[in-house]
């Protein structure tokens, strides 16, 4: 546990260290434990301490069962390679066939609600970056879910 985490706890961290220390705090269990002790010391000295109820473990267990929120990540666009690589005719043919096949499969499997309205899958492909982030950051190794957003077209 570094002095900087103690400074972070006091909101006395320099702007340039903020990212690094917040990352250390969210990544290391030992740092989080000490953060908890710091909080106890503060609560005691400010006459706010109580042994009950500390709900954080219970809340995090529930949060772990929630779909991981990943709204702020944008999939990377590899525009450079798309511009540089020559497009071969067989690639165009394969791509066109693939698109038609995908459309066929998709239209045959469009889900509907009980009243017959169409349910459209807004986010149908999940970038690998999302998945890596999701598996790397699930706190309690619980069940893994990816949030799928559905839009009902009446």
């Amino acid at each position, binding site marked *: *546990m*570094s*002095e900087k985490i*103690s*400074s*972070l*706890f*006091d*909101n*006395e*961290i*320099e*702007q*340039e260290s*903020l*990212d690094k220390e*917040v*990352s250390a*705090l*969210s990544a290391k269990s030992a740092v*989080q434990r000490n*953060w*908890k*002790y*710091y*909080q*106890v*010391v*503060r*609560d*005691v*000295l*400010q*006459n*706010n*301490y*109580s*042994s*009950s*109820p*500390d*709900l*954080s*473990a*219970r*809340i*995090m267990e*529930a*949060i*772990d069962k*929630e779909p*991981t*929120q*990943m*709204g*702020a*990540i944008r999939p990377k666009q590899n525009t450079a390679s798309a511009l540089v690589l020559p497009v071969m005719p067989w690639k165009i043919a394969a791509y066109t066939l693939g698109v038609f096949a995908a459309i066929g499969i998709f239209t045959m499997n469009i889900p509907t609600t009980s009243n017959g309205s169409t349910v459209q899958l807004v986010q149908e492909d999940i970038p690998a970056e999302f998945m890596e*982030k999701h598996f790397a*950051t*699930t706190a309690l190794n619980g069940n893994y879910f990816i949030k799928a957003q559905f839009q009902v077209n009446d």
Partner: protein
Amino acid sequence: MNQLKVVPIIKPLYNGPMPKEHPVKSDSRPVNPERAIDQKLVEKAQQGDKKAFGILVEKYNKKLTRLLSRMVRDQSEIEDIVQDSFIKAYRAINNFRGDSAFYTWLYRIGINTAKNHLVSLGRRPKAMDSVEIEDIENFEDGHELRNLETPETSMMTNEIVTTVNETIEMLPDDLRQAITLREMDGLSYDEIAAIMECPIGTVRSRIFRAREAISEKLKPLVEATSKRW
């Protein structure tokens, strides 16, 4: 049931006026550091980092419990409402844009969750006149939380309070003074540096060393408390 009133043994060290000049200027710190730190944690949670959200849970769950205990008296109901509030906050985290402080946003969710809970039970929500949104940022009331204690947890509370106070008493003078000026008098590092007539780096180090010494003593007690919950 009689509740034990726990009062820190250590008294604030400094009651005089705040020093006007500070030996070291720390201009590189964010304008509102607490909000900046919370915002960073929110951004990490928005990128899928659940542990970052866990820090916010750790930071605010007791404060939210204290706040909601003014509206709801039953402990198990309060615990459910606090949990629901955090889950709602997590589900809506991508909608949080930082227009208000995270805790103001969280407490609004908490108060609405409590109101809806009471209405669903056919009970009239208690007026929250004494805790307006603008007061929420400074809301602290340990007594509200201690009213929820059982005799067992009350004993544990006293044990932890005693350990902290005794450890602080045994600290070297400079460490004791630094941690008390910070935690009890609520002074900034600049202000502590001015009072103790030392560089801000020394203040940083003294507060850190004091915390480490107290944490070492607290570790077994806090872990035992966590296991019970």
